């Protein structure tokens, strides 16, 4: 009756007796897998994170120029000097059919490094879909709503500093009477959006215009009126207008309407798609590099293991001499290699996931939006492919041990 055999006592003993080789092998495989996982998951996280950050911007209208620059500046608040859109177009967008709201996006000031963005209340609460976690949305001039990460309490007051970045000494508005005179009171805090807008301070755009000595879009200064309707004759230019269409059809119609010699209209998602195509090429290149690295590491590891097995050929010869079958010693060698590669791959997945999360955390502070790390099918294919390749390639040393004559092994040193 066939009762099988048990190679695991020998496998366990070998692994215990060769701890250094085991650890070096597992770590080499783990590092190569971790690098592959990190590259692929980071590319995905960047794509998903950036796409999520653009969710609030269906259609962007700006002055003619670079579409990418318009998106990066408005969506990700990557402050750059861009040409201003004629205020008259803001008025036109606000009253165009099919528009839920048309929000000016104006920046140029900061408080302690936090961008101060002038806009309208409809944008601040995303058309009523984004309720403050504390307080309320601004309702009059001089009020501000802060993003989730801004360290300002409800009721706190502050003055803006001119510029897009915090200067070393801009604890307060420095050297500019208009900025120093302006003062905002925090009236609300928005929920976390996991993007750069969590660090922004939203104020009525009229205040931004006033601070910069521009007309505020309304025909008199008597009231505290903010937001539309605008008086086209008194509207100043804005870097961008974020339009919320009421339907997909209207989104396309509005885009066509504002593609004029005086303005550009873009779907941020479309612009990002072009970026993703470029990123995709980079990812493909990185994936090839990662896979090449893995192949080289596995080859090096197998060579090291092969040398190790050849050094232990006497042990295998003894096993066969005392009655082990060729299949038994084949299995011992094969299982040892596969175990090492599998353990390395498993550790690599953990290290890659951990490293990718740490990288995402750091990247969020650098680029302003969260990069959620999730392991996907690609990483699964990478890891399973590595293990399967290892399992196939492991048959080589196992076969060499399998076919080696016993007597030759017994007399070897």
């Amino acid at each position: 009756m066939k009762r099988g055999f048990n190679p695991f006592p020998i496998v366990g003993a070998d692994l215990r007796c060769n701890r250094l080789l085991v650890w070096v092998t597992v770590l080499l495989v783990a590092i190569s897998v971790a690098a592959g996982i990190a590259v692929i998951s980071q590319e995905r996280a960047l794509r998903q994170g950036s796409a999520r950050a653009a969710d609030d911007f269906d259609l962007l209208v700006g002055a003619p120029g670079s579409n990418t620059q318009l998106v990066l500046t408005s969506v990700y608040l990557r402050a750059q000097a861009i040409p201003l859109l004629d205020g008259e177009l803001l008025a036109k967008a606000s009253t165009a059919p099919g528009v839920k709201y048309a929000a000016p996006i104006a920046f140029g000031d900061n408080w302690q490094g936090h961008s101060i963005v002038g806009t309208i209340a409809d944008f601040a609460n995303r058309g009523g879909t984004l309720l403050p976690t504390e307080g309320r949305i601004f309702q009059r001039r001089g009020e501000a709503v802060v993003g989730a990460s801004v360290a300002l309490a409800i009721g706190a007051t502050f003055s803006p500093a001119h510029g897009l970045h915090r200067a070393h000494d801009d604890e307060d508005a420095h050297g500019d009477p208009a900025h120093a005179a302006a003062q905002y009171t925090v009236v609300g805090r928005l929920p976390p959006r996991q993007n750069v807008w969590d660090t922004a301070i939203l104020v009525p755009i009229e205040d931004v215009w006033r601070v910069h000595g521009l007309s505020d879009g309304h025909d008199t200064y008597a009231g505290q009126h903010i937001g539309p309707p605008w008086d086209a004759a008194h509207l100043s230019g804005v870097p961008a207008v974020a339009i919320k269409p009421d339907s997909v059809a209207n989104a396309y119609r509005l885009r066509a309407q504002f593609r004029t010699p005086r303005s550009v209209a873009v779907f941020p998602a479309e612009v990002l798609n072009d970026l993703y195509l470029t990123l995709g090429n980079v990812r493909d290149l990185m994936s090839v590099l990662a896979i090449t690295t893995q192949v080289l590491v596995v080859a090096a590891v197998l060579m090291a293991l092969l040398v190790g097995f050849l050094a232990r050929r006497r042990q295998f010869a003894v096993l066969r001499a005392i009655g082990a079958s060729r299949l038994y010693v084949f299995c011992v060698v094969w299982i040892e290699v596969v175990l090492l590669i599998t353990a390395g791959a498993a550790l690599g997945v953990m290290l890659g996931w951990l490293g990718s999360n740490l990288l995402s955390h750091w990247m969020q502070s650098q680029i302003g939006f969260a990069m959620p790390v999730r392991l996907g099918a690609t990483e699964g294919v990478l890891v399973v492919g590595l293990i399967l390749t290892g399992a196939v390639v492991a048959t080589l040393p196992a076969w060499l041990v399998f076919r080696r004559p016993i007597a030759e092994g017994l007399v070897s040193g």
Partner: protein
Amino acid sequence: MSATGDLRVRDLAVRFAGQENLLFNIAALDLPSGNSLGISGISGAGKTTLFHCLAGIARPTAGQIGWGGTDIAALPVDALCRWRHRHLGLVFQDFHLVDGLSMLDNVLLPARFDRWKPPAALRQRARDLLAAVGLSAWERLASLLSRGERQRVALARALLLQPSIVMADEPTASLDQDHRAQIGDLLLELVRAQGATLIVVTHEQELLARMDRCMRLEQGALQALPAS
């Protein structure tokens, strides 16, 4: 029908690849089951090669090696492996234990070659054998044992499956004087108690003297030595 431990060798010859002369040529060698045979000879005479041939570890160039009517020189590789496992116990000069295994697991090793887990009776036999060779603390790793202890474990391992043939290649050569005598005694005592055929290749005159028959491999031929 002959017992498995009956040895009948005819026209056994070995020539190494690329060499003109035969290493040895043994016209006939017979050993009844349960007897012991000591083989000596100078270094390079071919003792180890003869040992390997008789143990089914190496193939002769020509001839028959009949163990209990089975010509092992003609068996295919895998059948030969099964034959060794079933009928042969081997003891080496350098013990060849698995360092990462305990004493008990080293003794039980041959039982893992054809089953997942040794049955309780076999585990008990392994403990009995270790006790018989004077060892306790069975869970100690083989790497922590002295040379004498290692050879005792190797002897217990060779006897675990109650082989009808036990072969030992210089079993006392790497031991000090005290251990040589002890291991020689144990080898003879346990093998005889089991009724197995014993073949020992050794330079050790004291050990040779205790064998039923002694032969010397010299200039390619096996010559009987007078009983001491």
